[in-house]
């Protein structure tokens, strides 16, 4: 039943053409414009890894848009379970949490699919060397899972949708700011370093991909990936315990 539900949820998402614009065309436009602008004479000033501007922008933007993909879970849950449609869904001989899980998994797959298309595009068109593609997709999947879980928890724990939506935006912008992606100066304090090292899915994903791309400090790659996995497990546990409002 779960697989059937995932199949139809994914099918619905694949028909949402606005989603492609937001999750593929927009980031590709940002990568293209900023990548070329940042590339300059080939090396970005200040990048301690010696990466090209296009590589810096590509990795950052593609991971950041995995975070944006969390809105898919939130919006689909809202459409199916917090609108009039919930009465039909509740009338089915089908535990409603299975539907929520199917939306979560479909959103992760959809988001990773979009991310993968961008990875391949930047690989072929801009010569970004991603290293092990399988590893890149695994990291994108974990970043997306963390993000979808955060949005799912927000929408199922918080009573008012508007507040849940605000928390989604706050999550998105907070971690982007802490990662240094919005050109807002971040104070050099231990707490922020700690958040970026152990909690921020954007920096964890970035670390797991960058070191892997360069084939160095693989322990950092494994640590960051492990942290993303651990955060996912914690969020799932939180979801099971607290995320069950408004279903009846």
């Amino acid at each position, binding site marked *: *039943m779960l697989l*059937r*539900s995932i199949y*139809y949820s994914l*099918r*619905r998402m694949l*028909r*949402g053409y606005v989603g492609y614009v937001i999750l593929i065309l927009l980031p590709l436009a940002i990568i293209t414009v900023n990548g070329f602008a940042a590339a300059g004479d080939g090396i970005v000033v200040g990048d301690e890894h010696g990466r090209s501007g296009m590589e810096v922008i590509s990795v950052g933007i593609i991971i950041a848009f995995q975070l944006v993909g969390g809105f898919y879970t939130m919006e689909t849950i809202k459409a199916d379970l917090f609108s*009039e*449609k919930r*009465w*039909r869904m*509740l*009338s*089915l*001989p*089908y535990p409603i949490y299975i539907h929520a899980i199917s939306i979560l998994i479909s959103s992760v797959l959809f988001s990773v699919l979009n991310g993968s298309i961008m990875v391949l595009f930047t690989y072929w068109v801009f010569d970004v060397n991603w290293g092990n593609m399988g590893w890149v997709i695994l990291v994108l999947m974990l970043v997306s899972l963390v993000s979808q879980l955060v949005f799912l928890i927000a929408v199922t724990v918080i009573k008012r949708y508007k507040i849940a939506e605000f928390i989604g935006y706050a999550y998105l912008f907070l971690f982007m700011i802490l990662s240094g992606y919005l050109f807002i100066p971040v104070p050099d304090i231990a707490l922020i370093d700690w958040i970026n090292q152990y909690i921020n899915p954007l920096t964890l994903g970035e670390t797991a991909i960058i070191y892997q791309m360069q084939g160095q400090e693989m322990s950092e790659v494994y640590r960051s990936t492990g942290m993303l996995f651990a955060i996912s497990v914690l969020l799932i546990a939180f979801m099971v315990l607290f995320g069950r409002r408004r279903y*009846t």
Partner: protein
Amino acid sequence: MTIVYMKDIVKRYGSFRALDHVDLEIEEGTILGLLGPNGAGKTTLIHSLAGLIKIDSGEIYLFGKKLNENIMELKRQIGLVTQEVTVFEDLTARENLEFFGGIYGLRGAELKQRVNETLSFVGLTDKAKSLPTKFSGGMKRRLNIACALVHRPKLLIMDEPTVGIDPQSRNYILDSVRKLQQQGTTILYTTHYMEEVQTIASQIAIMDRGHVIAKGTLDELIENIQHEERIELEVVNEPTSELLVELENLNGVKQVTQDSKNIQVVSSGGAENVDNVLEIIKKAGGVRSVSAKKLTLEDVFLTLTGKTLRDGEED
């Protein structure tokens, strides 16, 4: 055989009792038309019956089994047609039916056959591959019904299935409901359109303020309010207040209403006031026309609830 048995149902929202000790039974193979003004509790009753909300007290049995102890099993035998169109707009008509049929456990050839039959039943075979976004209001309504029918439920609950559609689609839906009844489906049908209930329902229940205040066939309900006599007149001269008071003072008169030169006099049954009323009106200038009105479901509703049904749009 009793398919639905609701006993002493109470459902509260805060201090408001949406269902206040409701009793209701539905016999197998019947169409029960459920009528009620705004806030009467019709939708709450439907949601309770379909296991969508938890009741505060009382008992609901479906097909002889207690609802809250067999909820998933019983949901398989119910189809709910929601008030709003609640299909997936980004799945085709066929995919919608495949999704819902699949949830009810249909697979493979059986699922395909049921989907085809249901599309044909609601007249959407040629639109099977289209998205509902391209459908007219009536077609969306028919797909909405189809999604509740694909698993062939024994009990079909229809919550105002014809709201906002053209007369042609409405007739199509009403014909389909009759066909379903002929095939043995038991149907609970709520609507604001009295003529629909009069046309299709074998039993009628009227709800008001969380109670089922009357239930029976149309003839039985009319018989229950036959204790009233209605005389409608069109008079020559504009009636004066003195004339209206004189009519009100007649023996057995319960209510006199006036709209321009039209007067309606409601008396207790057996008052036989026609002659008396005519005599008074003649003295005041004469009668242009007179009729003793045949009672309708609308009169039953008005008598029992004190409201016209059109006051009660949206429950």
